[in-house]
């Protein structure tokens, strides 16, 4: 299939949609057992050149094991890892063109910043002059020029993080692995560093694979996210797709806040699948078809910010509209969070941006409110 230049350009940022692209890293049917315990269960995954790819999941989901297999610290029980067309499965960590940034940073305590960064180049017997040049280059990249002669114990957490990043970048690896790289930083510094990481990744064009349990972090930095659970990948998609079109209740509930209501599918073959939900107390029209069978159980998922919350009833209160009483209000400054007790007894959560500046909110405790939404806001989930 030949593609026009325009099409090709459009696909530059989404290589996984381009059938002519070959993946930079291929995981083929990877499994890892520890005795009876399966840490990673038959995972196959393609990662493309220049991606910022996140492995996201709760602790114990196998994401770190998967990353350690990419680095070579763990050998897969079964399956192959292909990097740039070469089978890496049996290559020891010191011979892989892959570098890793450790969660604890793992800076060598007996070496100063410069020597830490130069360590990898010295192992490869790079000429001295070139080592100096390349070390200076990455020190500048992470803005640590002032601290080049310091020992690790004289650095703050954020500075250590920068040195660790510089050390893992100086060898120009084909792929950089990051294990919870920002986990030890405080929130403000973490957000700044996320954007810096993205800028550095864009500048160098190296494939980044990051492991994180922080969904906000994954949403911010990633080109694509793989959500993992119990050693399996549940969904691989862009942050927007993961958030707006989760493929399962697990993904929907793991990423962000969401309201989920149980119901029964009314007509699944038409263009406008509808679900009758007693919990929601209304008929939910979605404007899309679904492959869930008629009269089967299904779940409707709606993000809190998709609701219109009002004390006035909308034109039709039987479709895409829930009624209840305001149970609790959380004022967060930029947002207000409303916990609404629906007539069915189920709690729903709605978020409203505080656009107008006023002390008195128009909606208050024990008000009877209507939560309505556009058909496209609801997602139908089968499990």
């Amino acid at each position, binding site marked *: 299939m030949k593609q026009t230049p325009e099409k090709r350009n459009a696909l530059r940022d989404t290589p996984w949609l381009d059938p002519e692209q070959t993946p930079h890293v291929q995981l083929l049917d990877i499994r890892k057992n520890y005795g009876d315990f399966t840490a990673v269960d038959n995972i196959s995954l393609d990662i493309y050149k220049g991606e910022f790819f996140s492995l996201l999941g709760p602790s114990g989901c196998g994401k770190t094991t998967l990353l350690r297999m990419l*680095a*070579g*610290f763990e050998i897969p029980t079964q399956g192959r890892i292909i990097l740039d067309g070469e089978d890496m499965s049996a290559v*020891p*960590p*010191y*011979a892989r063109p*892959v*570098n*890793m940034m*450790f*969660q*604890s940073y*793992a*800076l*060598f*305590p*007996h070496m100063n910043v410069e020597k830490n960064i130069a*360590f*990898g180049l010295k*192992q*490869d017997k790079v000429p001295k002059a070139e080592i100096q040049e390349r070390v200076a280059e990455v020190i500048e990249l992470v803005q640590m020029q002032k601290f080049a002669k310091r020992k*690790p*114990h004289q650095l703050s957490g954020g500075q250590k993080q920068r040195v660790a990043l510089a*050390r*893992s970048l100086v*060898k120009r690896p084909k792929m950089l692995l990051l294990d919870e790289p920002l986990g030890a930083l405080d929130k403000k510094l973490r957000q700044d560093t996320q954007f810096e990481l993205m800028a550095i990744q864009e500048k160098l064009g190296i494939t980044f694979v990051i492991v994180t349990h922080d969904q906000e972090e994954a949403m911010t930095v990633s080109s694509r996210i793989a959500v993992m659970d119990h050693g399996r990948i549940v969904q691989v998609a862009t942050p927007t797709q993961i958030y707006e079109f989760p493929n399962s209740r697990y993904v929907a509930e793991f990423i962000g806040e969401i309201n989920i209501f149980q119901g029964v599918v009314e007509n699944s073959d038409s263009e406008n699948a509808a679900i009758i939900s007693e919990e929601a107390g209304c008929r939910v029209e979605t404007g899309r078809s679904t492959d869930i069978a008629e009269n089967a159980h299904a779940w409707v998922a709606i993000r809190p910010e998709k609701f219109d919350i009002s004390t006035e009833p909308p034109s039709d209160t039987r479709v895409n509209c829930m009624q209840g009483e305001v149970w609790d209000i959380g004022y967060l400054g930029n947002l207000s969070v409303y916990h609404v007790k629906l007539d069915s007894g189920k709690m729903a959560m709605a978020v409203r941006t505080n656009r107008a500046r006023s002390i008195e909110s128009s909606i208050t405790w024990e008000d009877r409110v209507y939560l309505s939404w556009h058909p496209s806001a609801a997602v139908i989930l089968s499990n």
Partner: protein
Amino acid sequence: MHSRLSAFNITALVTGFAFLYLPIVILVIFSFNASRLVTVWGGFSTQWYGALLENEGIRSAAAVTLKVALISSTFATVLGTLAGLILARFGSFRGRTLFSGMIYAPMVMPEVITGLSLLLAFVALAIDRGMMTITLAHITFSLCYVAVVVQSRLVTFDNALEEAAMDLGATPARTFFQVTLPVIMPAVVSGWLLSFTLSLDDLVIASFTSGPGATTLPMKIYSQVRLGVTPEINAVSTIIVGLVAGGVIIASLIAKQARRDSDANHP
């Protein structure tokens, strides 16, 4: 504050320290005695230290002791470090308990038995007894002390350091020499000092395993004391006390520094 010094606390402290150190203090004081009579104070003098230098027997015994201590502590440090590494690293393998038990056993084994069994071994293997057999014996019993010191350091060692080194292209051997060894070096040095001082003041095992012409300082002192204590013996004992105390103090300072470094690295 609980640390206020009451009369009772001070008394307890003084009694305790007196019990521990009074004999040594007396020994040190009398080594500076001008009188030939050990128990009678005849004024201050350093003549017995001078007399030591003239004493051929004590000088050669001191030379033997130092050589044995240097060689045995160095070998014990190499072997003990390896044993400590294996104990700390290889999680659980078949026979681990037996292995670690066998490494620590010499620490609790009565010295007489260690000495006797080594003597029997040397006789059975027809090895001529002398300086070499003392050295071998000292390696045997001080190895376990090094292993303990190194292993306890490795418990707090961040394995990610080694992984980082390998990830950056260092082979396992280079990782050991460029990262692991420098990081655990303080423990290795204090292990060396410990085995050096242990070798320096050993009498029992040296007596069992020595042969003609190989007399260590403690053996020399012991044999002379049987003929009567001379101020010369006080002087040589004072020197040994100084050396051992110095070694122990340096070892503990190094260990403390190392602990501070690793704390700074893992806040």
